[in-house]
């Protein structure tokens, strides 16, 4: 058991691995550059460990976000050899002995080095109204809403989003046109739409069913591939399209407006 961690030390002491890291300092640089570092190779290390080693031992100015180092806070998403990944769960051993290129998540503006600007997403969450708007208001004294395990299962996957932005980095539609609401925000909207306690699907449709919403998606499906939490935003978006279509057909067939 635990073969990964157990066989590390001992013989592996002198091994190193090369990291090529994207550097950009807005105060001084007009273009980014790549700095190369030789980092000790340990089988149980992740890319984030290597970055921390560089910051502590070689270059204290290397800048990146991280916090929980257990793949749940969503801070440390970066491009690792061209793929969006959480660096806290991207192991050096999956690349060794080849070098690893680390870059900020693609499709986002770069604030500095590996730090992206994600203001855009924060606004989009508000636009989509990612909060529960109850179908029937309920007093605290009356206790909890009843929700069967099956009703919970309907939206549970979409509630697992950690806002790590990997899906936006995988989505070429967002890369080409950032007015697209995008995978995570749409999945979160769908999360509330599918919640048996919620009654605001129509309100959210202003954004979700707009040209910038689900209908902007060309179903590349890459968002669901890279999602570290199996949220399946592509699925959420296609469900949104199906719902939008059936609502539209109903509105045409049933002119008296029942939905």
């Amino acid at each position, binding site marked *: 058991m635990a073969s990964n961690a157990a066989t590390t030390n001992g013989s592996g002491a002198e091994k190193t691995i090369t990291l090529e890291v994207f550097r950009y300092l807005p105060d001084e640089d007009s273009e980014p550059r790549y700095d190369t570092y030789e980092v000790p190779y340990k089988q149980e290390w992740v890319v984030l460990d290597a970055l921390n080693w560089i910051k502590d031992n070689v270059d204290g100015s290397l800048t990146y976000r991280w916090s929980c180092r257990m793949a749940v806070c969503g801070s440390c998403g970066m491009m690792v050899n061209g793929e969006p990944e959480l660096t806290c769960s991207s192991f050096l051993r999956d690349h060794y002995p080849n070098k690893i290129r680390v870059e900020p998540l693609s499709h986002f503006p*770069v604030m500095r080095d590996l730090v992206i600007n994600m203001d855009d997403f924060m606004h989009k969450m508000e636009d989509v109204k990612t909060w529960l708007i109850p179908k029937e208001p309920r007093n605290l004294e009356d206790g909890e809403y009843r929700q069967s395990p099956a009703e919970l*299962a309907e939206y549970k996957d979409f509630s697992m989003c950690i806002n790590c932005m990997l899906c936006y980095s995988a989505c070429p539609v967002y890369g*080409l046109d950032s007015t697209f609401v995008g995978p995570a925000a749409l999945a979160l909207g769908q999360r509330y739409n599918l919640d048996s306690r919620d009654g605001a699907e129509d309100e959210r449709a202003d954004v979700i069913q707009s040209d910038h919403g689900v209908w902007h998606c060309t179903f590349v*499906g890459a968002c669901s591939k890279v999602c570290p939490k199996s949220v399946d935003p592509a699925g959420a978006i296609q*469900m949104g399209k199906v719902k939008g279509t059936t609502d539209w057909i109903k509105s045409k067939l049933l002119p008296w407006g029942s939905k």
Partner: protein
Amino acid sequence: MSKDYIRPMSKTWYMERSYWRRFMVRELTSAFVAIYCVFLLYAAYQAKSADSFSVFFEYLKKPASLIWHFVVFLMVTWHTITWFAAAPKALRVYKGEDRVPEPIVAGAHFAAWLVVSLVVAWLVMG
């Protein structure tokens, strides 16, 4: 005041990642589906009289036509496979609180496809 660095997408962005390339191939094959639909409409139009249809039918037998049909067959088949493989995304099926696994939903689509194909084949050949 700091300025963010913007990295524009390259003109050949779709060549950069394998899942983007696969997406582009899927999109490309959809063009063949559309073109062949037009072709079928044209065939139906030619069926307005026996004469015009026999002329049209002779054209179909030429090698160029056969190659064209073979290419279209490959493209449309690929499109259908990728389309059905993606279907579980839009059709999430639950049995109680457990989600029916994607391969089963996709498999049902493939099975239905096979049945419909056999029925059509039986109608045409039989």
